Every structure is written in C-alpha cells, then in structure tokens.
C-alpha cells in the first residue's frame, strides 16, 4: 500500500512536471508568426506514417538507420511493459497483463530480445560518437560540450533502463524458480542470467523491487530530461513531420504584405487590406524577414524543437563541405537557444546556450548578428540539400531565407556585389549589366533572326 501511494505520488509529480515543461515549449513555439499551411490531411498523415513512424529518411545512411531502428522499435514495444508497470504500480498487482497467456509469452520474449538488441545498438552508437568519432556528430562550433554530453547521457540512460528491466525480470524469474512456482511469460535473456543472481529470497525480492523502481523512476526522470535535450525529437518528430511544407522544395514562401504594396504601386486603385492591429487599434509595424527568433514562423520554431542534432544537414551542405562558416544545424540550434533565451526557459535546467561564446555583434542579442552571422547566411546556395537530408523534415533553408530578407529589406546589408546585381535587374531587367536591347542578339547567327 505504501508502495502504491509512493508510486502514485512520484508518477503524478513526474508527469505533471513534464506537462508543465511541454506547455512552456508550446507557448514558445506559438511566439512564431502565423503560417498558412495548405495541403490535404491525408497527404500529411501519409507523410507522418512514412517519414516519422516508418523512418523512411533515416535509411539514406544504412548503419545508423539500423541501429536507430532497433532503439526506436525497442522503445515502442517495451512501452507495453511500461504500461504493465504502471498498472502494477497503481493497483499493487504483479504482472497484471499475464492474463493474456501465450500473447504475454510472446510479448515478454520480444521485449527481452529487443532489450538485449537495444543494449548492443546503444553500445555501437556510443562507439560511433566516442571512439570512431563520426565527423558530423562531433565537428562544428555548435557541437559544444553540452550537445556532445547530451548525446552520451541519452545512451547511458538507455543502458540503465535496460539493465533495470533485466534485473527485475531475472530476479523475478529466480524468485519463482526458488519457490517452485511458474512465472507467467517467457524470458529468453533473463533465463540466461539467473545464474548470476544470489540464491537468497530476500535479496532477490529486493533486487526485483530495485529493478522495478529504477525502471519507472528512470523513465519519469528521463521524461523530464527530454525537454532540455535533443532527445525531445522522440515526441516532436511526429508533429514536425505532419506539418511539413507540402509544396515543391524550390518554392519559397511568398510575402503577402509586399504583394499588396507592389500591386498598389502598379495599380493606384488597388485596395490594400488592413494589416494586423494592436490592442489599441493602431496598426502593428511589421518587420520584413526575420531578425529574431520570434520573427520566424511557428513552423520554423517547431523545427528547432525537433532537431536531433544529427548533423546530416550540415554534412551534405556544399558550403560547409568546402569549409565555409554555414552549418544548417547551427542555424536550427541557435533558433532554439534564442527563443528560450528571449522568453522564459521552459526547461528545468538550461544547458543549451552559447553563454556569450559567439554573438557580440548585436546589442540586443537577437538571432541575426547575436547568434547567426551574416557571413553564414550569405554562404547558402539554397540548394535544398539540408532539407532533403533531414530525417524529420526540418527546413533550415526557410529560416535562412527569412533572415536574408531581413538583412536586405530592413538593413540594406547585402554584400556589395549583390546590390550591384539588384540594380542591374532593376535597370536592365537582367542580373548582368547588359542592355535589354541586346536580349535578342543570340539569334543573329541563326535563321530565326528574320522572323
């Protein structure tokens, strides 16, 4: 009974704390500008099933895809056992789902095998990070001490959780063996481990409880660690993929306020619709492009909270490959850091910031110049490689273009040669300094010229 009350208290505390954090993150995301979505729900669901549930884009790289798949499937299936743990915890039952008989046997056996595979996969993933030092996981200014530690903490937690599970199962199994009673379920891995456990009933009973509590406390603690971690993607990947832009990647967003202005210039009778107003009914001065994180759309901010920091975007970025400053991953991580810095941090602890390492360029610490330098933004070729590479459909290019719009339209801070290009287009209708009257010269040596 004490255990039940204790369990309920801990579970309510853990889940409540998690909900509190998620609500703050949601508020942060909603600081972003509105964005018209378009596209059909069925297409969105289809994408979510393929890319988020089906891990479709992970398989661009086969080794990490397989290792990740093991951990992902393990997570999904072992959750069934977590449900049982919850039920047992609340009602004081023991292996509440065992009434399912043969199905329970299969479930437990699958769990155990997956659990063992998860440990193997996690060790391999740790090896890739720390021994093999896969370039994209360790290189880059944005991969500071915390993001690297974060990556490892998750792996350590997985090991602890799996160990707890096996401790619980093995102790329970041995306990039942000593008492000569059949334990419901089938335990292919734990039955190999029974030899390692003591013959003492009291010790076994304690071990079973330690395993049980460690597993559930671990899960609750991990749940509350998620919002501070890149591991938050296990939740955010799903909404993020659901809200993917469903237009061709080459189609950049249209700025409606500019459309109205241009139309009014071309046609004086054009009625510009009223823009947004503040609480007093005065028109809100809108900024062109994005100077700060909250000038971006909520979709860009949702992207930022879905980032797994895997660096696949950066590793295919032509600018980054050839040694330029731009790293799409950094843009995304900067956005998340900035939105948390500007608004109250939703996290229990706040480890992500640069802490002034970069960004002395702006007084107010805004995203552009505060974290992201114009040099990074101008290095982008808008080639969409980062967009294509992201396993959870993050679009760093969208944010980059918004920030370029701010630099050009608000600060007139484009590189000189681009300003020359702009004035060529304005004056000659071509980005090069050629006269429009020469536009047909290509046909001179061709028989179509006289047409």
């Amino acid at each position, binding site marked *: 009974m004490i255990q039940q009350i204790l369990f309920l208290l801990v579970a309510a505390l853990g889940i409540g704390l998690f909900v509190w954090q998620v609500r703050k993150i949601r508020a942060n995301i909603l600081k972003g500008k509105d964005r018209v979505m378009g596209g059909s729900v069925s297409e969105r669901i289809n994408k979510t099933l393929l890319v988020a549930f089906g891990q479709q884009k992970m398989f661009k790289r086969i080794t990490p895809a397989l290792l990740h798949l093991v951990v992902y499937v393990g997570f999904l299936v072992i959750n069934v056992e977590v449900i049982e743990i919850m039920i047992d915890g609340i009602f004081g039952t023991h292996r509440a789902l065992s009434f399912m008989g043969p199905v329970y046997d299969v479930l437990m056996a699958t769990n155990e095998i997956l659990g063992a595979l998860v440990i193997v996969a996690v060790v391999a993933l740790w090896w890739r990070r720390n021994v093999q030092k896969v370039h994209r996981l360790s290189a880059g200014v944005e991969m500071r001490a915390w993001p690297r530690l974060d990556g490892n903490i998750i792996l350590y937690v997985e090991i602890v959780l799996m160990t707890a599970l096996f401790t619980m199962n093995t102790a329970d199994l041995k306990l039942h063996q000593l008492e000569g009673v059949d334990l419901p379920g089938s335990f292919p891995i734990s039955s190999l481990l029974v030899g390692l456990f003591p013959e003492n009933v009291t010790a076994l009973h304690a071990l079973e409880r330690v395993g049980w509590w460690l597993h559930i406390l671990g899960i609750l603690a991990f749940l509350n660690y998620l919002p501070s971690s890149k591991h938050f993607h296990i939740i955010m990947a799903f909404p993020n993929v659901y809200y993917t832009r469903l237009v061709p990647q080459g189609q950049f967003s249209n700025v409606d306020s500019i459309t109205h202005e241009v139309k009014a210039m071309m046609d004086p009778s054009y009625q510009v619709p009223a823009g947004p107003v503040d609480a007093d009914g005065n028109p809100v001065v809108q900024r062109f492009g994005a100077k700060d994180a909250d000038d971006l759309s909520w979709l860009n901010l949702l992207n930022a909270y879905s980032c797994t920091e895997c660096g696949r975007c950066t590793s295919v970025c032509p600018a980054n490959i050839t040694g330029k*400053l731009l790293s799409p991953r950094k843009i995304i991580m900067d956005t998340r850091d900035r939105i948390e810095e500007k608004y109250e941090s939703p996290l229990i602890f706040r480890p992500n910031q640069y802490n002034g390492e970069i960004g002395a360029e702006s007084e107010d610490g805004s995203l552009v110049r505060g974290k992201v330098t114009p040099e990074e933004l101008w290095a982008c070729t808008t080639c969409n490689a980062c967009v294509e590479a992201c396993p959870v459909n993050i679009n760093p290019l969208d944010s980059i273009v918004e920030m370029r719009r701010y630099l050009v339209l608000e600060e007139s801070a484009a590189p000189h040669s681009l300003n020359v290009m702009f004035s060529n287009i304005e004056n000659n209708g071509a980005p090069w300094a050629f006269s429009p009257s020469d536009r047909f010269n290509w*046909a001179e040596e*061709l028989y179509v010229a006289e047409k």
Partner: protein
Amino acid sequence: MADLAARGEQPEVLFWVGCAGAFDDRYKRVTRAFVRILEHVGVKYAVLGMEESCTGDPAKRAGNEFLFQMQAMQNITTLDGYAIKTIVTACPHCFNTIKNEYPALGGNYEVIHHSTFLQQLINEGRVKVQGGESYKGRRITFHDSCYLGRANDIYEAPRDVLAALDADLVEMKRSKANGLCCGAGGAQMWKEPEPGKKDINIERTEEALATLDGNAAALENLYGVESGNAGATPAKGNGNGIIAVSCPFCMTMMSDGVKNKERESSVQVFDLAELVASAEGLNA
C-alpha cells in the same frame, strides 16, 4: 512574340530564353541548339525577345522579395498580355520560379523544363538522335541541377535523354536527391564565395572528373562522399569524357572547374540540348 501576335497567331509553346540564355556567350550556344531542335521538329514556338525580363529568381533567393515581386508582376503582365499557356525553358531557375512562385502572384502557366521537353520529343520519335555526332562508348556523367532535381523532383528526364544518346552514362556518388550543388544557386553566381577551404564548383568538378576517370582513390578523398551511397565505383576510364548539365549556372561553374583543373582538352561540358542537337546532326 510581338510579330506573331500582330499576325493574330498563337504559339504552341513560348520558349523562355532567360538572361543567361540571352546574354551568356556560352549559354547562347545552348539557346541556339535548342531553337534548332524546335525548328527541326516543327514545333510552333515564340520568344519574347526584348520583352522578356529577369524572372526575379536571384533577387528572391538573395532576400530581395520586393524586387522579385516587381519583376514577377511585370513578366506576368507580359505573358498574360499574349495569353501564354505553355512555357518551355532551358534554365531550371526560371523554370522553378515561373512554375512554383508565379501562381501566388496570379501567373498560372504550364511550365516545362527543356530536359522534359527533349525527353518527350525522343519518346515520341520526333527526335531520333541519329545522323549526327555519335556518342556511342563515350563516358558522360550528369550533374544534377538543384533547381531541377531536389527543387522539382526531375531526375529521370535528363537521364532518359542521355540514355537515348547511347553513351556510357556513369553516375557520380553524389547524384539525384544527394547531388552536390555547383555552387552558383541562391544568387552565389553574382558574388564571391565566402572564405573556406575551396570553392564549391572545384569540389564538384573533382568529383565529376574522378568519376569520368574511374579514379576511386580521388573519390574517397572528397569530403562528404560516403561509401555505400548510390553509384558504384566506376570502371577505369580513358580520361576523356563529358560532363552533361541542364542549367546555365551549372554550365558556368563546371566549365570553370574543368579549366581550373586544366582538363579542358579532354573533358567537355555540354548542355543536354547541345548533345541532342549534335547527335541529330543539327550543328550549324
């Protein structure tokens, strides 16, 4: 186009030449090659000539949305004035902008990139790619344009065109959706690259040359090329070959790269339209 309209006629397609097609000396040859193909198959086409203006693509990618929309509205007015329905262009940037970004501003057209157009002509048997220069046994590698490939999912049309040439088509490791940019998109064409280890077009040219040469060691040394990706290590080549492109920016960047590597005597950069025109015996 104005002449055609004056005669009260309507073209089947409007050939959108684009600024590079009109002004860039190298790409003017592509424009002429494509026009020869159009004449050869008897498609009734027109060009806007001096009434054409930049689509605004470089302005938009560089963040100058205002200038982009001014250009777009102006072009839409011209196109709608002639009641244009179908547009074909050899420039993936013009293609992408008119196809994807003009509709939001009221310009709705069927837009075809010349690689798709050529593929259709070949499929319909209107172009036989025989009778001119033969590409049999020559090594060709196709460099995907970002604004054709990733931006608009057109990967097969240019490859089908090349396959019709009966050449020895070899794929770079970074191809199709994983293709590496030539380095000119997003208005990079008009500015110096930011400081770095090397220029993007050099990296891409090195990959193309190593693929044509069958130089596996050089390929492994390129940063970011992971083994296990699409495209097997090619067999040893003879050092000669063709880099096929379908975009004026890629043309400039790859040609500069080949010059930089001093390989212009053995490796040439051609647009799909040029390859088809010369295979069809349409060289002027």
